[in-house]
């Protein structure tokens, strides 16, 4: 029985339907990410769980009870906002304790609970400061603290790291992961950044224009994307796509003719294959560099830009099928203009049909 469940929910703003008949379940204690580009409806879904958006039709359940019409404060959820929404006129202590003081919790109890949260998030020294005096990362922790002190059944995060710089973001990611390990509360996390989703979540829900594209663990989504959208969204650098025509089939092996004339064989996942054209997806790390004109090469190409990252090298190779991004080992001695051949790892490649679903 899912801990948080949305059943057949629809969200309409006037005549515009943003979400249509979506159903979703979140397991207790899990860290679920809602991932997708802006406008896909992920924040709307989160806010429907929070009670900040009305559910036009459908139902929402938390911990077994229906909360579709329940006001937010009574759902047992707490939210961390993208811009933190810390009350600027209150100290950190008062910010964290705000919900308790609204509920007229005795002062001693307030102080005790604030103290516990502050030590968990390392905020003890900042308790008497105002938000304006804090750095971005500190404010983020206070926002988490404010949510944590309410001891919620579900933690909701609305793109909490998007306002932080890169270094801070990685640091906060680790802290969030540790937090989840520590408190073991169900967490639903909205983000457009697939790295955040991949690193933090045990389950990712990929959303596209108000519909669920795929649900699965990070590695599932990475290794077995169900459609072209998920395949292109997950993984950085992004997957390469190119068209190909089916030239033969034997069991699960599909022979393809590629642009440029070479051929390759790719293992399909099922029996859905139709004849004609497919789209092939190959991740940058699943291309192998070889000599130009080598046997078994899928493409002959010329190296365009080379990006030396230290632990890997990114090559932008011009081929008959357009530009391919190839990820090779670090410290590679190559130069722009060199001719190379690219081989595909056929066990790790993907095919997508006309309907953009995986084949």
């Amino acid at each position: 029985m899912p801990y948080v469940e949305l059943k057949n929910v629809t969200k309409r703003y006037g005549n515009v339907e943003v979400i249509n008949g979506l159903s979703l379940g979140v397991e207790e204690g899990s860290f679920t990410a809602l991932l997708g580009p802006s406008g896909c409806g992920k924040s709307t879904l989160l806010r429907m769980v929070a009670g900040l958006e009305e559910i036009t039709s459908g139902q929402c359940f938390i911990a077994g009870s229906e909360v579709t019409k329940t006001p937010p404060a009574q759902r047992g959820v707490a939210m961390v906002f993208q811009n933190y929404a810390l009350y600027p006129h209150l100290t950190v202590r008062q910010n964290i304790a705000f919900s308790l003081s609204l509920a007229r919790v005795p002062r001693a109890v307030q102080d005790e609970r604030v103290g516990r949260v502050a030590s968990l998030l390392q905020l003890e020294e900042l308790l008497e400061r105002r938000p304006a005096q804090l750095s971005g990362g500190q404010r983020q922790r206070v926002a988490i603290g404010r949510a944590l002190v309410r001891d919620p059944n579900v933690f909701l995060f609305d793109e909490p790291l998007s306002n932080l710089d890169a270094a801070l973001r990685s640091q906060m990611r680790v802290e969030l992961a540790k937090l989840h390990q520590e408190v073991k509360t169900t967490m639903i996390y909205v983000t457009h950044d697939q790295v955040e989703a991949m690193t933090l979540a045990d389950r990712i829900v990929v959303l596209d224009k108000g519909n669920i594209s795929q649900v699965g663990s990070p590695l599932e989504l990475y290794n077995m994307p169900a459609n072209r959208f998920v395949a292109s969204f997950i993984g950085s650098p992004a997957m390469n796509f190119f068209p190909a025509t089916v030239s033969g089939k034997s069991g699960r092996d599909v022979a393809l003719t590629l642009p440029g004339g070479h051929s390759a064989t790719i293992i399909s996942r099922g029996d859905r294959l139709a004849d004609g054209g497919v789209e092939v997806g190959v991740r940058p790390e699943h291309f192998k560099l070889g000599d130009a004109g080598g046997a078994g090469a899928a493409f002959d190409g010329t190296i365009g830009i080379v990006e030396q990252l230290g632990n890997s090298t990114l090559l932008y190779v011009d081929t008959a099928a357009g530009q391919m991004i190839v990820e090779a080992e670090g410290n590679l001695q190559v130069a722009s203009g060199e001719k190379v051949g690219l081989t595909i790892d056929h066990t790790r490649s993907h095919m997508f049909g006309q309907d953009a679903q995986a084949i």
Partner: protein
Amino acid sequence: MSNVSSNAAVAKRRGPSWLGGVLLTLISAICAAVWFFPLYWALVTSFRHDDETVKSFGLIPENPTIDGYLYVIRNSNLPLWYLNSTITSVTITIVAVFMAACAGYAISQLRFPGRQLLWWIILASFMIPVPALIVNHFVIIASVKLLNTYPGIILPMLVTPVTVIVYKQFFDSLPKEFREAAVMDGANEFQLLLRVFLPMNWGITTALAIITFIGAWNSFLWPFLAQQNEKMMTVTVGIVAVRDSFGVFYGRFMAGAVLASLPVALAYLIFQKRVTQAITLSAGIKG
């Protein structure tokens, strides 16, 4: 090429750069002094003996005295008028500002039937000149037998659509995440208003309160109509309604004038920033 030479020509015309600044300050100071003269003259007169006021016209009183002030305080109803002004102005300030904050909050944050209509009516009320309504105010207050009472003075002066509009626009301007966070923390609307929205900017409330106070204190037409009883007059009305209080002695008149303007002048001088802020806010609405 020609730009460079014309630059040099311009620079030459202007002379050394500090001269302009000094000249400007000098001219400004002179203008300000001229502008200030009436107030200065009133002050000087107030510290003169009454017989001296009609004889000497020096800029500094030769024998400064506080006789005028003493007379006014002891022999007229001015202390009583002060009390009346204080009671009415403070009441008006507190009640009007609080009512306006509540109404502005409701219009900004809540959805209720008639909300749009109410907002339109408030906006339109700018065009109705309040002095045109004095007759009707008089009739209404007379009919509920509140003439010559504090409520009688206070009631018509509680109408401040500008304050409602300023509050509504201020509440509109707050990012809605604050509201959402507070709602998730369990706040009801009253707690939202009193513990989140208003405290986020006490400056605006202070500014509106001060300007409401000044307006109430300085009000003439309505308090003049609403009180026939000298003992119930506000100080603004009293100093002109009762000429015989002082006799025809200008030293005393000026003392009375200075005393009458003291609270509002001080309010401005102390809270200059707030007053400026309130004025720019209310003017911004009419634009």
